[in-house]
């Protein structure tokens, strides 16, 4: 294949991505998009891989409303991992079996066994599933931002709890395994090292920052859950710093960077800080076309700066 412009494909571990952009778990629902589109959204799917909303072993109804609101250059959410549970989730797989892109399944839980149960159920299903009845599931992202049942702290804030979750999941699958780190820590490389040590193949970061918004009228916490997770452009400078730290600490590890990506330049900044792929979260809420716009902008940035490939830009900010 002869290509004139920069090479956009990247290898996220064993997963070949056409370009570096994926959706951030919980911010993009493929089926809902396809229902509201004038055409075949499966054919036009803009991301290089699909990361669905976190699924847990049992069905969860999530937190009381209100669950979202805007903050200066950001937003806060407390959805509470609402999801139908892995069994109902598996039942839906045929509906999006025609997706061409690889899928990275986001998995949640409150203890290691719950994570492993999700993966085991899915692996069992995939082993038995008829051809064409499931999308191309190539990896897992372990969302360790759920509170730990025993400590109450987020699992990801505790390196040893993180390691336990990863180890349990590593037993349950041979597929690519990402641990998604929480930024609510002193040193994000501690949980990163624990996850990699326990068998994770790569790291995703950042999840949201624990935060609080008050109701202007009552001065009480606005969200039904009192606190929620802050994301969006407001946090980008902190997320970039954390991605750079992880990339520096684990130079050969596949990294999915995220936090406030709104433009192609933002995505390129994460790549420059060492990300292999970049996830787009809150930007999905700004316009239906945000993914394709950001992708086009990223392509233009790479081209205008004369990069031969995405790989060439990777880690730019880390080199002296």
């Amino acid at each position: 294949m002869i290509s004139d412009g920069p090479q956009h494909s990247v290898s996220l571990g064993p997963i070949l991505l056409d370009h570096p952009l994926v959706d951030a778990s919980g911010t993009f629902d493929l089926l809902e998009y396809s229902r509201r589109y004038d055409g075949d959204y499966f054919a036009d799917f803009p991301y290089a891989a699909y990361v669905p909303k976190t699924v847990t072993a049992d069905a969860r109804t999530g937190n009381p409303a209100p669950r979202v609101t805007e903050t200066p250059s950001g937003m806060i959410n407390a959805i509470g991992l609402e999801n139908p549970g892995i069994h109902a989730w598996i039942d839906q797989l045929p509906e999006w079996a025609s997706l061409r892109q690889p899928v990275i399944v986001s998995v949640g839980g409150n203890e290691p066994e719950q994570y492993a149960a999700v993966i085991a159920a899915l692996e069992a299903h995939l082993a038995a599933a008829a051809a064409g009845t499931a999308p191309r599931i190539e990896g897992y992202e372990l969302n360790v931002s759920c509170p730990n049942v025993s400590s109450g702290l987020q699992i990801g804030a505790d390196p040893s709890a993180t390691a336990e979750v990863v180890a349990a999941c590593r037993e349950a699958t041979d597929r690519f395994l990402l641990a998604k780190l929480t930024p609510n820590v002193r040193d994000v490389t501690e949980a990163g090292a624990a996850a990699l040590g326990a068998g994770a193949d790569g790291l995703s970061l950042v999840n949201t920052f624990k935060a609080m918004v008050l109701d202007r009228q009552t001065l009480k916490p606005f969200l039904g859950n009192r606190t929620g997770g802050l994301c969006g452009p407001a946090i980008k400078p902190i997320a970039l710093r954390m991605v750079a730290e992880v990339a520096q600490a684990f130079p050969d590890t596949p990294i999915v960077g995220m936090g406030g990506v709104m433009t192609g330049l933002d995505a390129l900044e994460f790549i420059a800080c060492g990300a292999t792929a970049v996830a787009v979260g809150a930007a999905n809420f700004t316009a239906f076309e945000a993914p394709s716009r950001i992708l086009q902008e990223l392509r233009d940035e790479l081209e205008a700066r004369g990069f031969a490939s995405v790989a060439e830009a990777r880690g730019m900010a880390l080199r002296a």
Partner: protein
Amino acid sequence: MSDADAQTCGDHSQWAETSHCRVAGVRHFGAFAAVELIAPRVARRAAPGQFVMVTVPGGGFLLRRPISLFAAHGDRIGLLVEARGGGSEQLTQLDVGDNVDVAGPLGSAFPTEGVTNALLVGGGIGCAPLQYLADQLAAEGAQVTAAFGFRDFRSARAAGAFSIDRLWVATEDGSVGKAGTVLHILASLDVAPGTTIYACGPNPMVAAVQRWTFAEGLRGYVSLEAHMACGTGSCHGCVVDTARGKVRVCSEGPVFRLDEVTP
């Protein structure tokens, strides 16, 4: 419940791609602005009760604002916006010729098929979707009566934006129309049997209208509000409790059967 045979509110055409729209007209009513946009593709698909996600121009606001369709005809849609916080305030300041991005129509619509008598009950800015609904019902030959409640003189300015033949207004402070809530209007109306109720407004009003509707042995529909992030079913930010559990206002709603919500 008498609503058992009510039509479902779902399955209306939803379209999330962005339309870049020119502002064709603006009328101001105190803190409210009725904004007319040229949006042929939205107008063509729209049904009363649906809403659009509107990008606040200028770049200062991350999330889009959900706004009901106040009108839709030909290549135009109308929005009635109340300046409440920073984003809606900026939308009321749109000028003719400005451009604004909207995505829609989104969400479920008010069922109107076979309705012969309709009573539209609105509270505050919740009245907005009822103009479009009234137009549609009238076009389909239904008898339409509307009862709108406002807090005070300032919020009753919105009434000036509406043109509905049989429209009753109440204000809590008695400054315009009947003194009291919209329930006082309902109590004084002679409601034909089989009348369909359509409600939109603050939750306490919806709850009161719900009780009244059931007491009268009527059935109806309600449009609910919720804080939204995506507006298109992706984020699960906009849930409300219903008889069938937590559902998304942007996706399963905003219009629900009156008997399935618990406001």
